[in-house]
């Protein structure tokens, strides 16, 4: 299964629910395009829900980094929600876990943007 993306608004936070595989090709470009679209529409608070992401490769990690810096460069914040163990392990060995603001529960993550 490739990646599936669906966005919803919770207060002033845009939550992007991601499921499937974020790998080089369709998966990573879909995530990149969606994040850029949200930023171009002026969205400053983006919560990326990765709870249903089964697999992510180095290209997918690159897209997370790229999204993070793109949002920050536009004066916004992108945070991560619900990492699976494998995604968390990957972010830890690449030293990115402490770069991202990572949350386990959605309500707490939404509040953290305030």
């Amino acid at each position, binding site marked *: 299964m490739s990646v599936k993306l669906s966005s919803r608004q919770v207060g002033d936070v845009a939550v992007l629910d991601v499921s499937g595989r974020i*790998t080089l090709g369709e998966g990573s470009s879909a995530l990149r395009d969606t994040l850029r679209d949200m930023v171009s529409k002026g969205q400053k608070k983006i919560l990326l829900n990765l709870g249903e992401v089964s697999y992510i*490769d180095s290209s997918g990690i690159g897209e997370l980094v*790229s999204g993070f810096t793109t949002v920050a460069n536009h004066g916004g914040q992108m945070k991560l929600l619900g990492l699976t163990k494998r995604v968390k392990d990957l972010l830890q060995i*690449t030293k990115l876990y402490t770069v991202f603001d990572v949350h386990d529960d959605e309500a707490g993550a939404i509040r953290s943007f305030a």
Partner: protein
Amino acid sequence: MGKNTGGEAETVDEFLDSTLDSVDSAENLVLDVAQKAGFPEEDLHKIGMAVRESMVNAVVHGNQYSAHKKVHVSVSKAPDRLTVTIADQGKGFDLEKVPDPLADQNILRFSGRGMFLIRAFMDELQVRRLSPLGTEVTLVKYLERK
């Protein structure tokens, strides 16, 4: 596809097109052998990921999606290990010149984590230049005795 069975070792190999579909094909080919060899689920994930990253390097950076170039994937199963070789027909690269993705100045780089992940997930990694063109990557994962 070739298949060689000699004693307890078994080798399967395939020449794949330089496309992203071949990344999936190589992963499936290797995981099929690794599964039969008895690797646990977590190791299968690591082997699959290392193969994907190596294939992406071969297809994208090595052969640059050329329709005239192939990627040769070979997987051998021995009683104590799985050995995977992935060879492209590209211009090659110098492993020493790949920037350290963990260095502070590189942490937020978009790319450059593939070789690092391969090293992290496999027990051995060797890279060698082929003549006249190409790079061959050899990955080894040992089967832990229970």
